[in-house]
């Protein structure tokens, strides 16, 4: 049905071959990279700034961290809905990016806990708003046959920013130990450049108008299409898997407990995961295009299973730690962008951003539930056993869900 859509996208204007990733996708990737350098440089030093420089407390940090997690998921659906209603994903995303950039100015002036909490909430609000419209733009600029690769390219650039931001921030603090404001200013610089590039370079694609112009009946936005069987099937599958996804933090804690290497590098383990994520993002995106996105999405959780195995193994050493981080990175590379591609496939253009947002929110909520439940399990039966129990459940779920997603896999293997 809507598979025919991107036969006329920017691709035709530029005349690039179908397999090429659109320049719009690359530009969006660069915008995300700049924004992630900006956000993650601040996020990585925020605990230091709050506790060390401002003299606020430990609890305050936990509270702010909670805001970080919660706000984003809630407004995500709102962002998708606004994008679909206005048929203008670019400017909705622009609003999200601009809001996050503005918060970097705020950080220079607030010093109290409440001030910082609201500034961070606004930053995450911006992130929540922009994600779905941006993914809808990526879809509208790609062809079905390279959707996985397009998202792979975008997530690769995005992750380079996420890994580079903290390194940049700590480099600044290395030169100026109290240079928190300098980090905020540099962060603001990157954020503004991202917003400028988005505003000036990315075309204001209108997915609904595009499909209408192609002679397809022009559909208004409808919440009901969210209950469409394909999307429902995807959300169910992704939701089950998300509940069985233990937060990275827990895996790092298990490793730290086990291996002196992981203990020494504990604060930096996530950098290793990010590096693996960006290395695998494009290859796994291409694999998803060829082998079936739903299949790669579900099988990506085998890498997660491998990471659990590494964490639960009674041996600890540098090699096990590194293997665990590589597997975690591969897991993200096989699932993060691929989920957006799958959700795009499963929703018509007029509902696309909302559909993507719904799938991502299901995963976010599922992971929150999973992590909370795992935390309880962890203290009830101990670290290793808790990991083994979740691993067993995941091992059982993967084959069952592979069967479940067959209808999705068949149509996506265009």
């Amino acid at each position, binding site marked *: 049905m809507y598979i025919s859509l991107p036969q006329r996208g920017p691709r035709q204007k530029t005349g690039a071959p179908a397999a090429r990733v659109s320049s719009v996708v690359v530009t969006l990737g660069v915008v995300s990279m700049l924004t992630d350098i900006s956000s*993650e440089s601040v996020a990585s030093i925020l*605990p*230091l*700034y709050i*506790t*060390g*420089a*401002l*003299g*606020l*407390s*430990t*609890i*305050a*940090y*936990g*509270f702010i*961290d*909670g805001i*970080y*997690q919660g706000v984003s998921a809630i407004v995500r659906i709102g962002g998708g809905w606004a994008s679909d209603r206005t048929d203008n994903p670019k400017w909705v995303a622009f609003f999200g990016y601009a809001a996050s950039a503005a918060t970097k100015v705020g950080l220079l002036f607030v010093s109290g806990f*409440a001030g910082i*909490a609201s500034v961070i909430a606004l930053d995450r609000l911006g992130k929540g708003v922009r994600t779905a419209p941006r993914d809808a733009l990526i879809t509208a600029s790609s062809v079905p046959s390279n959707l996985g690769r397009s998202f792979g390219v975008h997530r690769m650039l995005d992750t380079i920013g*996420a890994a580079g931001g*903290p390194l940049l921030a*700590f480099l*600044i603090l*290395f*030169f*100026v*130990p*109290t*240079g*928190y404001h*300098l980090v905020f200013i540099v962060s603001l*610089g*990157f954020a503004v*450049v991202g917003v*400028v*590039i988005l505003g*000036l*370079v990315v075309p204001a694609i209108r997915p609904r108008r595009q499909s209408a112009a192609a002679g397809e009946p022009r559909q208004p936005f409808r919440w009901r299409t969210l209950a469409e069987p394909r999307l429902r099937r995807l959300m169910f599958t992704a939701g089950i898997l998300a509940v069985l996804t233990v*937060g*990275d*933090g827990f895996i*790092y804690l298990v490793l*730290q407990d086990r291996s002196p290497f992981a*203990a020494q*590098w*504990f*604060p*930096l*383990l*996530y950098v290793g995961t*990010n590096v693996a994520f960006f290395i695998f993002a494009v290859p796994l995106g291409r694999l998803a295009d060829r082998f079936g996105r739903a299949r790669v999405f579900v099988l990506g959780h085998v890498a997660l299973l491998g990471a659990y195995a590494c964490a639960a193994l009674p041996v600890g050493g540098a090699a096990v730690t590194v293997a665990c981080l590589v597997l975690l990175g591969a897991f993200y590379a096989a699932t993060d962008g691929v989920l957006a591609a799958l959700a795009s496939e499963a929703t018509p253009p007029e509902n696309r951003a909302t559909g993507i947002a719904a799938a991502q929110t299901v995963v976010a909520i599922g992971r929150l539930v999973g*992590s909370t439940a795992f*935390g*309880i399990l*962890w*203290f009830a039966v101990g670290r290793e056993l808790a990991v083994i129990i979740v691993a067993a459940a995941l091992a059982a779920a993967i084959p069952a869900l592979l069967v479940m997603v067959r209808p999705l896999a068949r149509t996506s293997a265009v």
Partner: protein
Amino acid sequence: MTPRARLVTAVVLTVVLLGSTAAYAVSAIVGHQARQAIPAEAQTAAFDRQVAAGRIVFRNTTADAAYGLVASVSADDPSGDRSVTDIACDRVYSEARSTMCLRIDRGVLTTFSANLLDTAGTVQRSWSLPGIPSRTRVSSDGERVAFTSFVTGEAYATVGFATATQISTIHGDDYGNLEDFALTIDGTPNTAADRNFWGVTFTSDPDVFYATAATGSKTWLVRGDLAARTLTSVRESVECPSLSPDETRIAFKKNISTTATAHWSIAVLDLTTNKETVMPDPRNIDDQVEWLDDSTLLYGLARDDQPGDSDVWSIQADGRGASALFIEHATSPSAVRP
């Protein structure tokens, strides 16, 4: 604007913005290095002469070459001459025989460590920390040490707020994370998933210590037993306890806020009468208090106008006097006793 004109504008703006950001960063770094080149006002002196009875050891925060270094003043003349060591710590606590120095090992790959120093300032033991240093204490005989750090480092944190607190001896014994001790709250064993512990204070009994336990949004003063590996709640709403030298009272920070935003005041609990006195300093104080002597409390307070700078304040432990500035440009104080 044509697409081409937009592209050119974007490129020009990108170059200008990133260029000016880089220029600003370079000038800030040069400015910092110039400040670092300012010779420290305080004189330098050997570590063992500073960590000595009758001195207050602290982390110096003057904006010069001595920033972040361990320094000391005489307890009799705290505003008088200060002398600095060549040892940098982000948190420091000294007793005559042992010093604990928690450090942020800065670099592109920043890590955190706890270090036990001997009387000469030489590192005797070192532990990797899972996050930013928070609290540290040494027992009055210099035999046992405790340190708390946050558990940070996951960019997309899912564990939420967590602390790790460990107790060790200077002879190489580790009692491990306090999370592995058996916790009893109001007579009931507690195994909540979100248990956290921080802020240890030692007693003269080698097995007994006090600390903060937290689960949910509540905190407790707990009495710990190293031999039995148990923690037993004593009183609710007590954080970062600090036992007086005569061991009759505990000074602590108390959250007096009624909203989600915490506001801590310093309070003193009399262990025999169970009477609690809140100190008349209305500011938000987030520190583990130090006893200068049996009647005076010391605590660090960050300066609002200058990130990274702070002062040490003093207040009478009976709550009958206003707080007073004790040591300027200083934090993390410890009174070294004979």
